[in-house]
């Protein structure tokens, strides 16, 4: 039975359960909903939940576990000699899976008889010919062992699916019976539904958290893998970044310092641009602008935040770079060699960060109670005195938090750097020189043919981990500052 049908049938049972449960509960109350503990709909929902949740959970688990079990038992049947010289069991198994799938599809499409597909002594040349004729992908010549395994695989797969359908349906019906038995006027259906909703919300929250943990763990394991191949001291304190893709790990120098320096330099330039402009525009918008100006200007500013960073990258590459080059390049002051430089990327990234700083700061400044302003104006302070001496100090923790959040975005930014800052990993103080950042190097280490056992590719995980720790630290610091000082001003 196809999966879709199974799901539809279970849903059908659930709908029937809803109607039946609701009706049964109403009947037990003599048709008067006021005699029920809960609204009639809750009894229906209770039945539907008991139909869907256990059966669908079992189905999900089954779908995950079945291929693992079958893989295990089939791969055990493949003889040692069936694995070619320069291949591995894993590759053979994927061949087996592909063939099994091909057989299934070919039979379903009518290109092959069921008898041939299941015949263990079938001529494999004929089978592969028929598979190819039926338009199924067969990458290499089938061997007898692979064909046998594929047939086993297919048989077990079909068998497993049949059992699963049975189990799921039985569970759904059992749930129906259970739910219907409970549908009595004294049953607290409302509380059960409440519990289920709570369980659903907890499940959603835990998926988000577990995914984060999974990402961090995969980063950590790959980073450990990298440090087995490459000494950690050389990574953290090396001042040269020159990976080689020759495949011999020893010839690469993978020092992170030039990349970190590039990251910080570009981020600092970006913040020098973004913080004053963003902060001043936030002050203007929240304190001086009339509601009409504000209602136009604030969304306009926030449009900046909606521009994809690749577009900023293009802007850096095609507009800002050449513009800077015409002033600071060979024809001008002669400090700049090419359009891609720390300055180019930093300026454009700063523009990108303006809405972050201004929007967050604006919210924070607006959150300063009006009574503070009244108090200050009531003492005869001017607007700018009030802002400088009362509002900004009160809003400072929030503003610092906003700046740190902007900083962690700057550190994590990739596209602008790839297009605007160049690709040379250099330790230099000249802001008009090309440099590169951690993120840009992660991209370049992983694009193309990456061999995930070489330090040149694994270094990407170590770089990612470094970056993650940095931005996490900044975020934690930002939250700490915001929390620590918040209550003091309320």
């Amino acid at each position, binding site marked *: 039975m196809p999966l879709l049908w199974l799901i539809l049938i279970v849903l059908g049972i659930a709908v029937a359960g809803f109607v039946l449960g609701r009706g049964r509960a109403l009947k037990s109350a003599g048709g008067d909903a006021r005699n029920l503990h809960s609204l009639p709909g809750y009894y229906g929902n209770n039945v539907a939940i008991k139909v869907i949740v256990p059966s669908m959970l079992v189905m999900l688990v089954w779908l995950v576990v079945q291929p693992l079990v079958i893989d295990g038992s089939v791969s055990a049947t493949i003889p040692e000699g069936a694995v070619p010289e320069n291949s591995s069991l894993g590759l053979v198994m994927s061949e087996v899976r592909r063939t099994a799938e091909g057989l299934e599809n070919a039979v379903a499409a009518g290109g092959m008889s069921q008898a041939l597909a299941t015949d263990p002594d079938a001529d494999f040349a004929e089978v592969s010919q028929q598979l190819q004729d039926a338009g199924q992908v067969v990458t290499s010549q089938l061997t007898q062992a692979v064909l046998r395994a594929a047939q086993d695989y297919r048989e077990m797969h079909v068998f497993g699916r049949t059992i699963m359908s049975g189990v799921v349906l039985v569970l759904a019906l059992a749930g129906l019976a259970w739910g219907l038995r409970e549908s009595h006027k004294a049953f607290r259906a409302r509380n059960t539904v409440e519990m289920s909703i709570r369980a659903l919300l907890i499940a959603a929250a835990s998926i988000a958290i577990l995914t984060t943990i999974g990402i961090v763990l995969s980063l950590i394991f790959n980073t450990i893998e990298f440090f087995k191949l490459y000494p950690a001291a050389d990574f953290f304190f090396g001042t040269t970044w020159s990976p080689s893709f020759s495949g011999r790990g020893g010839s690469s120098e993978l020092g992170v310092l030039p990349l970190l320096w590039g990251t910080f330099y570009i981020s600092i330039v970006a913040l020098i641009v973004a913080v004053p402009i963003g902060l001043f525009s936030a002050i203007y918008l929240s304190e001086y602008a*009339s*509601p009409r100006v504000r209602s136009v200007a604030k969304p306009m500013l926030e449009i900046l935040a909606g521009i994809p960073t690749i577009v900023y990258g293009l802007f850096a590459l095609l507009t800002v770079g050449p513009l800077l080059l015409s002033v600071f390049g060979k024809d001008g002051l002669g400090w700049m060699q090419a359009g891609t430089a720390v300055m180019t990327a930093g300026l454009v990234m700063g523009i990108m960060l303006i809405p972050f700083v201004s929007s967050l700061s604006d919210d924070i400044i607006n959150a300063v*109670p009006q*009574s*503070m*302003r*009244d*108090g*200050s*104006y*009531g*003492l*005869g*302070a*001017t607007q700018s*005195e009030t802002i400088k*001496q*009362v509002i900004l*100090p*009160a809003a400072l923790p929030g503003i610092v938090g906003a700046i740190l959040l902007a900083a962690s975005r700057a550190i994590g930014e990739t596209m602008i750097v790839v297009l605007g800052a160049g690709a040379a990993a250099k330790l230099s103080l000249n802001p008009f020189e090309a440099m590169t950042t951690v993120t840009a190097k992660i991209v370049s280490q992983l694009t193309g043919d990456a061999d995930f056992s070489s330090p040149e590719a694994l270094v990407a995980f170590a770089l990612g981990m470094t970056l993650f720790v940095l931005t996490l630290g900044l975020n934690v610091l930002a939250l700490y500052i915001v929390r620590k000082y918040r209550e*003091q*001003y309320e």
Partner: protein
Amino acid sequence: MYDAPLRKTDVETKNTKIVAQDVNVYYGDTHAIKDVSVDLLDKTVTAFIGPSGCGKSTFLRCLNRMNDTIDICRVEGKISLDGEDIYDKRVDPVQLRAKVGMVFQKPNPFPKSIYDNVAYGPKIHGLAKNKADLDDIVEKALRRGAIWDEVKDRLHAPGTGLSGGQQQRLCIARAVATEPEVLLMDEPCSALDPIATGQVEELIDELRGQYSVIIVTHSMQQAARVSQKTAFFHLGNLVEYGDTSQIFTNPEDSRTESYITGRIG
């Protein structure tokens, strides 16, 4: 429009500080204050009483042009302080507010130390010649705010850490520190408990010696306790203005009587 005659006894001893003539205030389309004319005396506590939304706070905020900070608010008529029109174009509202200090309903100390809270006004107006002078001003203000003894050992602790009553007295000290001539108080005790209220009321009575104090209050007992003159507002009109004893014992207008005896409001 009822314009109360001033009591003879007061006119003889006190000068008129603020004169309001035909003041009208609009919030957008709402007519909040209707043709209010009143003479407020120097070195006197004047209480504004009336039901919520009657315009007493609005009128109070006209006296130091705090309504300027509200975009949709429009003030018409003439208000003069010591004979000078405060709504004249040449008048700087910032200077005016230094002369007419204000204390608000909710204690609103700045997120600064106690010392800096009080020193804020003198600093922006350049009242102190040097640090020692500023220290003197702060101490004097805190003493006048009747809070010196409680905070003298922790002048550099945050003002927000004080109790509600202390915060309000700190705010009064802060307002006093700029040496205003008039002190406006917008329900200064509504957020305070009876003990703190008692302290603030005592303070108001002492402040009468140097300033003209105008207090908006919802508590008629408070008005009776602290004020010498009382103005009763109702629906944007000034219904009755006169000696507190007169208003509370023998009001001329039936609306005043209804309010005071608790039949309306």
